[in-house]
């Protein structure tokens, strides 16, 4: 099998000449060619590669858009209209970039859900997971600032409301907000710095993704069974097995992405942002993009707590909801990784997913309106927020102690190869032999 051969290129060839001076080829060969990946990945393992694809797409379309965009409050809105109407394929660049952001979050949320379900955050992958959370935070900052650039009503008021969150900090809050704005409201200085940062942050994300992948490749990938590979019979070389599987997944993804870009490009958008920003008129409803809605709901749900007023408490809860993810590897006390062997946690995982959907739904509605369930949305939001923190701070630490996990299989190959599946539990030795032959 060619993927197994160590050296890249013919002896004395150009590739070898470069490689002995700068080992890029042997590095790629090692990390993406031979890299031994568990043989039992399912399609949930496609989403990391999909995320990388979107990141590259966002940077490419973003650079081209930046060549046409003008970061000035007088001209920003019109320059975006010009991109849509006059720039060759400007509409395509913009729709790819706009919808790309939505799909980026969709893919990352699934990617993280995969990690939660299969326990990929547990030892020895804690730092890998935490780097992921850093990426998520950077993505959120980038998306927020990007949404300000077209300078529509929601751009302006979204920026106003979110930057004002910092005024909740006691004593220094107002000073921080003025500093963030570079003025006394969101204005031209704000737009300029947001553009600068929106340009910069994705490259920082690239840097953190590199660290993320380095950390991944130290101990290798987790897998749907959550047990470590015990030898070559449990893994396959990344190329061609997973390069193929990832390519197939990418094609499916591209179909959906292109479907939105070409047939429903504004489906994720809000009509209000087609109105140019007006600092003297607040639109009746200020909603963030869908991927922020669950966090927005948490922000608005929290009442006064003891001596902390609702404004500060809401901000703390919102940031807290992401910061608990950093602690997750230590909050979950169960040694078993995969949900397949955690009969109780599996239920709670799905309840958490429903809880996030509920919070997203609440975030998209006015807190004081009546929900179809007969209570006001704010009440639903409070229940959802409490449950979210209950899950991470109370349930997970306890569950690991109480739950009785199902017995783990002896090895990946034993559990997944057809011979064993049919017979229920054939001896492991037979499997190992078959594998030796296959390699």
């Amino acid at each position, binding site marked *: 099998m060619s993927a197994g051969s160590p050296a890249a290129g013919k002896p004395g060839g150009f590739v070898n000449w470069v490689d002995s001076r700068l080992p890029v080829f042997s590095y790629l060969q090692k990390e993406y060619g031979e890299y031994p990946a568990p043989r039992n990945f399912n399609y949930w393992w496609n989403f990391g590669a999909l995320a990388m694809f979107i990141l590259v797409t966002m940077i490419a379309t973003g650079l081209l858009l930046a060549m046409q965009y003008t970061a000035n409050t007088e001209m920003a809105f019109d320059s975006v209209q010009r991109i849509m109407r006059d720039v060759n394929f400007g509409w395509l660049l913009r729709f790819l970039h706009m919808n790309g952001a939505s799909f980026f979050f969709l893919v990352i949320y699934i990617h993280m859900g995969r990690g939660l379900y299969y326990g990929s955050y547990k030892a020895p992958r804690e730092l890998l997971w935490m780097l992921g959370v850093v990426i998520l935070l950077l993505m959120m900052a980038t998306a927020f600032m990007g949404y300000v650039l077209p300078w529509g009503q929601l751009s302006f008021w979204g920026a*106003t409301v979110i930057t*004002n969150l910092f005024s909740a900090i006691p004593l220094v809050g107002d000073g921080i907000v003025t*500093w963030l*704005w570079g003025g*006394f409201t969101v204005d031209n200085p704000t737009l300029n710095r947001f553009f600068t940062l929106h340009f910069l942050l994705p490259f920082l994300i690239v840097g953190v993704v590199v660290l993320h992948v380095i950390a991944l490749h130290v101990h290798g990938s987790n897998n749907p069974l959550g047990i470590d590979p015990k030898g070559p019979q449990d893994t396959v070389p990344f190329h061609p097995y997973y390069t193929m599987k990832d390519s197939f997944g990418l094609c499916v993804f591209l179909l959906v992405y292109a479907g939105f870009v070409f047939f429903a490009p504004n489906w994720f958008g809000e009509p209000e942002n087609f109105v140019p920003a007006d*600092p*003297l008129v607040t639109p009746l409803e*200020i909603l963030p993009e869908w991927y922020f809605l669950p966090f927005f709901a948490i922000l608005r749900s929290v009442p006064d707590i003891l001596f902390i*007023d609702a404004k500060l408490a809401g901000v703390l809860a919102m940031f807290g909801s992401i910061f608990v993810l950093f602690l997750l590897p230590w909050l979950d006390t169960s040694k078993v990784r995969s949900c397949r062997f955690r009969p109780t946690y599996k239920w709670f995982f799905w309840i958490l997913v429903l809880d996030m959907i509920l919070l997203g739904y609440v975030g998209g509605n006015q*807190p004081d309106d009546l929900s179809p369930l007969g209570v006001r949305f704010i009440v639903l939001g409070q229940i959802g927020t409490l449950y979210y923190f209950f899950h991470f701070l109370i349930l997970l630490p306890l569950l690991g102690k109480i739950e009785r996990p199902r017995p783990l299989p002896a090895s990946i190959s034993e559990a997944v190869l057809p011979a064993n599946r049919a017979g229920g539990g054939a001896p492991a030795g037979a499997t190992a032999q078959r594998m030796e032959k296959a390699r």
Partner: protein
Amino acid sequence: MTDQAHGEHGESRRDFLMLTAAAFSAVGVGYTVWPFISSMNPSQDVLALSSTEVDLSAIEVGQRVTVKWRGSPVFIDHRTPEQIADAEATALDDLPDPEPDSARVQKPEWLVVVGVCTHLGCIPVGQKPGEVTGEFGGWFCPCHGSVYDTSGRIRSGPAPTNLPVPEYTFLDDTTIRIG
């Protein structure tokens, strides 16, 4: 560290030098970083725009107008006698951010407040005739439902404090300078 030259109490000359050097570099780094941070604060041209003169003579009793000051709306309310009476009669105990009306106006018929909700910065409605003014006849913030009274004080909703009163002076009976 090769600290053989210990003093009486066990600390060496080198420790002293290290600490002093570290302290001085910390101060130096602080001085160097400050201009970088400060450059993001409001610039001189932004600060220069920070006062506005307003002619009040055309504003009738019961009328509210909005003027722009430092990029934000300022609400000027020519209050009716009933509105003034309402504002003055309110018990301080009923207020989340207690402040008597008299501390918020220079002349009772003119209320001047920054029209930016103290919750997260939306512009409350109630300036134009026919708009919702909320339960207390002042202003209503559509974003998260804060209600302000005829003195611009917060009465209910998530906003923590009253609408701020900007610095202003009466230049003569019918002109004010804000800022």
